[in-house]
């Protein structure tokens, strides 16, 4: 009895959008080589998510597929290439949510999990909680079979220099243009 004005239903659609950070960017500092590097990395992530959707896969799988290569790519502030804390460590946060039932999972301040987005998803599916943090989250990760990733995996020279610059300028974390890393 619901409103309809002709017989043709809309075709099933899929759609995906990704981001790799936002901030104040200097166009002059973006060399063609650097730009190509970023565009290739974004396209790789987009293609990974797109492939899942195009073959009829789920939105949840597509989101994870798109984020994984960005967590592995030192260009982005996530996973490998994450920025440094004041103490010189890399602490990672992630969250994921399923629009079907609004189930959600999140982790904060983990240091040894290679792909925090996957741990967030396991928090969603295998725990009664929404967010786990720090050592507890890592303990949960170990119980769920996540390998312990050494800190060297996450640390990059560029991010280390950014922290050193910040400290040299005696800036607090909130004073610097931290976006984009």
């Amino acid at each position, binding site marked *: *009895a*619901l409103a*309809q004005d002709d*017989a*043709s*239903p809309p075709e099933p*659609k*899929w*759609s*995906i*959008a*990704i*981001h790799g950070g*936002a*901030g104040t*960017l200097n*166009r002059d500092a*973006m060399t063609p080589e650097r730009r190509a590097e*970023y*565009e290739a990395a*974004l396209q790789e*992530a*987009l293609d990974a*998510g*797109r492939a899942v*959707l195009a073959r*009829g*896969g*789920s*939105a949840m799988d597509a*989101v994870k597929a*798109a*984020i994984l290569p960005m*967590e592995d790519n030192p260009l*982005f*502030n996530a996973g490998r290439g994450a*920025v440094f*804390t*004041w103490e010189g460590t890399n602490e990672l*946060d*992630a969250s*994921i*949510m399923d*629009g*079907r039932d609004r189930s*959600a999972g*999140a982790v*904060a*301040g983990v240091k040894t999990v290679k792909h925090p987005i996957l741990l*967030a998803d396991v928090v969603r599916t295998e725990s009664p909680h929404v*967010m786990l*943090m720090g050592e507890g989250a890592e303990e949960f990760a170990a119980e769920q079979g996540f390998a312990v990733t050494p800190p060297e995996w996450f640390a990059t020279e560029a991010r280390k220099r*950014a*922290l050193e610059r*910040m400290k040299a300028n005696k*800036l607090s974390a909130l004073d*610097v243009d*931290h*976006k984009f*890393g």
Partner: protein
Amino acid sequence: TVGAVALDMEGNLAAGTSTGGMTGKRWGRVGDAPVIGAGTYADNRACAVSATGWGEYFLRVGVAHEICTRLRMERDAIVRNQRLMQGLALSVAAADLKEQHPSGEVLHHEYGPYDIRQFKGKAWQTAAQKVERIAQKAADAVMADVAELGGDGGVILVTPEGHAIFSFNTSGMYRGRATSEGVNEVAIFGGEDKASATP
């Protein structure tokens, strides 16, 4: 920070965000990325959102949930109006929140009472176009709210109708989108969404 939002062919939405936080963070600082409702949110009745930017402001605005809530309410109104325009005001009341199964059992609609996927053809198209405009407006308005407080950054979102939308108040956002309609593009600075499209 990185993130992704997606709509699959079953009409389901999902959102995810992952980050290293901010350079030089201390005292166990946590931003918006792992906070459901601030940096990430997904609801089949509205949209899926992932955010990036100055987390303290995104937390205060509840950015991802705020965008979803605005869109959910507007989508409800679109469907309600569409029904009324087609002279089915009486059946709106009947189908308002529930429907009767032949067995007598009361069933709730899976995606809420107002779902434009129940429309077909032109009615669907009209409603979908409205949703796109409203989604962009909602994202822009919430980002303007963030800016008013002093924060900056951006969001990505997808709607149940398949729109992939960006909004940011910084000079750039590393971003990309692809749809079953043939969109496939990546971009960095503002106003160049199609400049970097690759096959």
